[in-house]
C-alpha cells in the first residue's frame, strides 16, 4: 500500500481503496450513501472528453463525479502496475485488465485474465513486450500491455 491521495488523482485504469471522506456534511453524506465508504474498492473508468467529470466503478456500478467532488475522497492505491512498467524476470500475477470486452477477449485467448501468473521475459522499452504464461511465450503490443495490471506474485491465491 502506498501513501494516501485523493480520488481525482487516481489514474484511469488504476484501483484504490477508500480511506476517508472530507468536505461538507451534505456532500460527504451523499458520497457515503452512494457507496464510497471506507474500505471500498474504486476503479477509475474514464475521464470525460473535456477532462471533467470522471467515471468510476464502485460497488459494481458506474457513476461520475466532478473533480472537485472526487477530491473529497481519500484513497490508497492498490499496489499494482501496468505490464509495461513491470520488472523483467519477476514472478507476477495479473490483478486486473482495464479495457473493453474486445480487449479482454483477445487477452483471454492469450490466457491472460485476472489471477493468471506470468513472467515478463523481455522488454526493450519500444516494441512488444514478451511474456511467458504457463510455459508458453506470447508477445503483447505496448498499447495492450499498458492495460494489463499486475502485482508481484507472493505465492498465494
Amino acid at each position, binding site marked *: 500500500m502506498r501513501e494516501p491521495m485523493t480520488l481525482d488523482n487516481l489514474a484511469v485504469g488504476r484501483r484504490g481503496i477508500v480511506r476517508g471522506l472530507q468536505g461538507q456534511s451534505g456532500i460527504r453524506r451523499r458520497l457515503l450513501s452512494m457507496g464510497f465508504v471506507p474500505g471500498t474498492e474504486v476503479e477509475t473508468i474514464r475521464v470525460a472528453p*473535456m477532462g471533467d467529470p470522471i467515471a468510476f466503478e464502485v460497488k459494481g456500478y458506474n457513476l461520475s463525479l466532478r473533480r472537485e467532488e472526487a477530491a473529497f475522497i481519500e484513497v490508497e492505491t492498490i499496489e499494482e502496475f501496468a505490464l509495461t512498467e513491470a520488472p523483467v524476470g519477476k514472478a507476477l500475477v495479473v490483478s486486473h485488465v482495464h479495457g473493453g470486452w474486445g480487449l479482454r477477449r483477445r487477452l483471454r485467448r492469450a490466457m491472460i485474465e485476472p489471477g493468471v501468473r506470468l513472467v515478463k521475459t523481455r522488454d526493450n522499452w519500444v516494441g512488444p513486450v514478451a511474456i511467458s504464461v504457463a510455459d508458453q511465450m506470447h508477445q503483447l503490443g505496448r498499447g495492450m500491455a499498458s492495460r494489463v495490471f499486475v502485482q508481484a506474485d507472493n505465492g498465494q491465491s
Partner: protein
Amino acid sequence: MSAKRKIEVALAGNPNSGKTSIFNALTRAKQSVGNWPGVTVERKEGRFVFEGHETKVVDLPGTYALDAYTLDERVARDYLTCEKPDAVVAVVDASNLERNLYLVAQLLELGAPVIIALNMMDVARSRGLEIDIDRLEKVLGVKVVPTVASKGVGIERLQQVVHDIHRDAPPPGLPISYGDDIEGGLAQLTEAVRAAWPDRTEGARWWALKLLEGDSDALALLAGDGAENALREVLDKVRTGLEKHIGADVETAVVERRYGFLNGVVRECTRRLPGVAGRLATSENIDWVVTSRWFGIPVFLLLMWGTFQLVFTAGAPLADIVDTFFGWLGGATGSVLSAARAPDWLVSLLTEGLIGGVGSVLVFVPNIVILFLVISLLEESGYMARAAFVMDRFMHLLGLHGKSFIPMIIGFGCNVPAIMATRTLESRKDRMLTVLVNPLMSCSARLPVYILFTGVFFTRQRGLVVFTLYLLGIVLAVLVARLFKRVFFKQEVAPLIMELPPYHLPTFRSVLTHMWERAWLFVRKAGTVIALASVLIWLLASLPWGVEYASESSIIGRLGGLVAPILKPAGFGYWWAAVSLAAGVVAKELVVATLGAIHGGVAGGLNQVLSRSFTPLSAYGFMVMSLVYIPCVASVAAIWRETNWRWTALAVGHTIVLGWLLAVLIYQVGGLLT
C-alpha cells in the same frame, strides 16, 4: 379489520431501478400526475383493483437514500413519516443489489412496512448472479417478490402480496447491529429521545440514529427548548465519546457499518455463476465509444442534430396538417355561423380569437410528441446520463448542469418543449435556471421577424446579421444564468454525483406512456391558458364595438399609442410597432403577421413603411427586442407549469426590461458611433 378498507401503498426505489416500469405495470392506465404540495417535484398516483379491492399507489421520487439532503429525498421521507402508507414497495435492481438495499435498510429502520420488488431479475441472471430469495426474505424479515417489470413478470404476485399486507403482522424492523460501541451510544440516545419526545411515532431508535448521523432535519428539531436541552447534552456526550473511541467521525462510521451489514447480506444471499462475465460487456463496449475522448462529443452532437432534424423536419408536415385543419375549422365554423345569421362579433371571436389562437398552439403538438418520443428513448436507454457526462464541463462553465444542454438545443426549435424537457434535471437550481434562460434561445418562430427586417435593411449581410442574433441569445443566456445563480441560488451546491446506468433497450410501452403523458399535459394545461389569452387579445383588438380589427382606434391600438413613447428611445416609437410586439406575445410569428395586417401585407406597402420608419440600427434593435422580450404565451404557460407564478413573473419581467434596455442601447450607442 374491515375488508373494504382502501389500501395505500408507496413505491420507493433508486433512480434506474425500474420503478417507473413497476408503477406502470401495476397500475396500467389508471394514473394521474400532479405535483407534491409546495414543491415542483412530480407526484404520480395510480390505482389497481385486485380481487375486488382497490389499492392506491403513490410513486415516490427516485432516491438513493432517505437523508433529506435533496428535495426528492425530503419529499419521500416526509410522505413516509407523515402519511404512513399501509405498505412501501421498495423496487430493488437485482443486478445492483448492495447499493439498492441501502435505501431498503433505511426504509426498514424507519419502521416502514416494506415489500421488496426484486426487479430486473433477467439482467441479474445474464450477469451470472443467482439470488437466494428465501434467504433474503429471512435475513431482512420482509417479503421479496422477484419481478421483470418490463415484461410484466411477477406483477400479479406483487399485487397479491400488497393486497395481503394488512393480514400480516407488521414487520419487526431491521435489526442492523452497528457494533458494541455505537450500539451502546445508541441505547443511551434512544432512552433520551424517548424521554424528550414521547409522542414521536417514528420510533425512538430511528431518531437516535438520525441524530447520531448528523441528519439536518433531526438536528433542526433539537433547536427547541425544554426537553431538548437534556437530549442535546446526551447527544454531545455520546458523540464525543464515540468519536474518541472510533477515531473517525460517527456519521461515516454509521454509514460504513450499515454498508458492511448489507455487504454481508449480499454475500450470504447471492452466488456468482462461474463462466459468465460479471460485468455488462455490451454496456461497456458502447461506453468505450460513446463517452470516449475522441468520439464522445461528435456522437453527442450527431444525436442532438438527429433529434433536432426529427423533431422539426419530420414534425413539420404533421404540424402543417394541424395548421390546415384549424384553418379549415375556422373557415367552416365561420360559414356555418354566418349561414345561421350569427352576429359578426361572435363569428370573429370564435374563428379569429378562439380557433385561431388555440390552433396556433396546438400546431406544436406533433413536434412535442416526436420530441418526447426521442427524449424518452434517450433517457430510458441510459444515454442521457452519458450526454450529461460528456457535456458537463462545458455547461458547468455556464453555471448549469450537463443535462441542461438538451433543453438549450431544443430551444432553438421551440422553447415550449424545451422548457418541458427540463424535467430530466434533478436539482431545483439547475431546473429553474435552465427554464428561465431558455426563452433566450432563438426559437424558429422568431425567424420570420429576422427574415422580414434583414430583407429590408441588411440585404448584403443577411446571414451574418441573423447569426449575430442567435449568438446574442446564447451570450445573454449565459450572463442571465450566472446573474440569477448568484442572486437566487448562492447557497445551493449541486454536485454532479450521477449514476451511469447500464444501457438497456427501452420497451415500446414505457416510451409511449412517457410520450403520451407529456403531450397530454401540454394540450391540457397550455391549451386552457392559451385559449384564455387568445380571447383576451381578440377582445382588446375588437373593442370598442365597430372598430376595424387591431386598428389604431381599437383598445390594443390605443394601448399601443400609450406604449409607443416608451419605445421611442429605441427608435421605433410607433403605435403599430407596439401593437405588433403585443400580438407577438401570443406567438412570435404574429409580429410579422400583425405588421402585415396593419400595413396592407408584404405585397402592399409594408416594406416601404418599414424602410421609411426604421433605420438599420432601430431595425436591429427591433429584432433584438423580438428575440428577448416576453416569451410567447405558450412558453409562459410552460414556465408556469414547470415552476410557480413567482418564477413566471420573473421570466416575463426580466425579459421585458432586458429587451427594452438592449434595443435602446443599440439605438443610442449606435447613433453616437455612426
